[in-house]
């Protein structure tokens, strides 16, 4: 392609090697440090452990309540993902299959919420949740449901946008045929559109999960000691006891592997969704 000159092949190989190094060096440090004994990470940096050990992976669970953080993060992320999917699928179905007043306005408004600085609605949201608790007794500050409700709206705009793109690519005749057969609109959505858009829905689910799993700002205000998530527990641990860097790296790996694996497995669908959404 491009009829590129012969020498460019070497430029390209060298360039790609540099990029690979940029990505790999921090990952290398993360992985090898997690396999180092404590004395290695307290001394001068070295590329390889003096002695390979798995004990950091054992110790992390007792040095901090990592298990509890992990479960909290899992509950919050799964809850936010499932609810966000329900809400996003239903909204995307309305936008892609119906022509109604306010359709464009809604699509634009929901996307524009993406540009708000989180800090802008963090303070008011905190106050609103405090006041909801006072008037109705539903406690949303310091509880997991509060985080679930908040997080599911974070992934919503992008999820709706991507799903509209997916749904548009499904021939309308398919669900119209189902409607003629006597299934209601809900039946058409669940039996025809959702199965046909399954790859897109899975990609959106991964995205929603990643969003909730990695969020820091709101978790720092909306969690209490017993509902602390990984996003707060881990950094707090690393700043307080920076000496246990081998454990910090091990914990970082443990919490990253599920999301990174999920993302990399499904990146193809995410890219597709990105382009199908952008083409419209």
């Amino acid at each position: 392609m491009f009829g590129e000159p012969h020498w460019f092949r070497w430029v390209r190989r060298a360039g790609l090697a540099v990029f690979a190094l940029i990505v790999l060096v921090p990952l290398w440090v993360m992985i090898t440090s997690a396999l180092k004994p404590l004395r290695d990470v307290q001394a001068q940096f070295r590329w390889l452990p003096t002695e390979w050990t798995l004990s950091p992976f054992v110790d992390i669970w007792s040095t901090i309540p990592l298990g509890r953080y992990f479960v909290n993060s899992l509950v919050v992320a799964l809850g936010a993902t499932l609810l966000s999917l329900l809400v996003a699928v239903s909204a995307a179905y309305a936008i892609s299959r119906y022509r109604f007043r306010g359709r464009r306005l809604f699509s634009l408004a929901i996307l524009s919420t993406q540009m708000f600085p989180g800090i802008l609605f963090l303070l008011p949201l905190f106050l609103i949740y405090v006041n909801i608790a006072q008037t109705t007794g539903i406690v949303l500050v310091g509880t997991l449901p509060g985080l679930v409700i908040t997080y599911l709206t974070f992934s919503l705009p992008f999820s709706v946008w991507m799903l509209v793109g997916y749904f548009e690519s499904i021939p309308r005749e398919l669900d119209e045929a189902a409607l003629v057969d006597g299934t209601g609109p809900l039946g058409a959505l669940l039996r025809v559109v959702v199965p046909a858009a399954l790859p897109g829905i899975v990609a959106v689910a991964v995205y929603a999960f990643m969003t909730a799993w990695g969020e820091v700002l709101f978790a720092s205000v909306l969690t209490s000691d017993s509902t602390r998530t990984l996003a707060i527990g881990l950094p707090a641990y690393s700043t307080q006891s920076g000496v246990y860097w081998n454990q910090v790296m091990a914990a970082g790996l443990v919490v990253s592997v599920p999301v990174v694996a999920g993302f990399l497995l499904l990146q193809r669908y995410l890219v597709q969704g990105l382009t199908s959404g952008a083409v419209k």
Partner: protein
Amino acid sequence: MAERGRVSGKALPYLFLLPALLLELLVHVLPMLVGVGMSLLKLTQFFLRNWSAAPFAGLSNYTVALDFNGAVGGALLHSFAVTLAFTVLVVAGSWLLGFTAAFLVQGQRRGRGLLRTLFLVPYALPAYAAVITWSFLFQRDTGLVNGVLADLHLVGAGDRPFWLLGGNSFLAVLVVALWRTWPFAFLVLTSGMQAIPHDLYEAAALDGATMRQQVRRVMLPLLRPVNQVLLVVLFLWTFNDFNTPYVLFGAGAPAEADLLSVHIYQNSFLTWNFGLGSAMSVLLLVFLSLATGLYLRSRRVR
């Protein structure tokens, strides 16, 4: 019956939208309006439980925030300048790195899929895990950065620099943000390049266009719509970035790397002055809307 069917048919799309609408109202729209209201109140910790009792403050929070000779306003202006420099460098750098990598990977045959996957790892890592790793790399006595610098004899054993304190901290937060952000530019530009039909390059090549001309005359113009969206998204993300400085420095960021999100956060939650914090947030939103609007308009007019 038919009548009822038609009416409910009309209401149906709104019914499907209702959950999304309610949630967006609760978590985004209502808080934004409340935030504007809060910025007009003298809302300190005494009124937190009963904020309707907070006295009306008019625009005084705004005058305090915008009085650049005062302590609060001066710090805000400084933080704004730091954030602007940070954003320009991260957006430009991420675009350049992302474009270069996407271009190089596209021409590579062997190992292309593997490289693409590898390059996306920094983006897929949870923000805090990636930033914590970097804060280890930047440790003065045990980190990789100083270790490598010492091996290259660029620093002596006694004068190892601090990276997370003082003037170097800006460079540190810049490097971390770049490392985390460029893969997104790479992802978007890769899918943008894939959407360009190959025959366009072949036609240009038949006309004698060199590789450089093909990139400048064919690829870049066709990537323009993609670039527009990408730059806006990168700009907003970077300007609002909270995770990178917060996890890298903890609650107290050094003055040289005092980015706005953390600055406002500290002003609000350490002093519990929510009125002032809200005023700063509203000013931030006004700036972001103006900047984004002007950019998009200038692109469209051309």
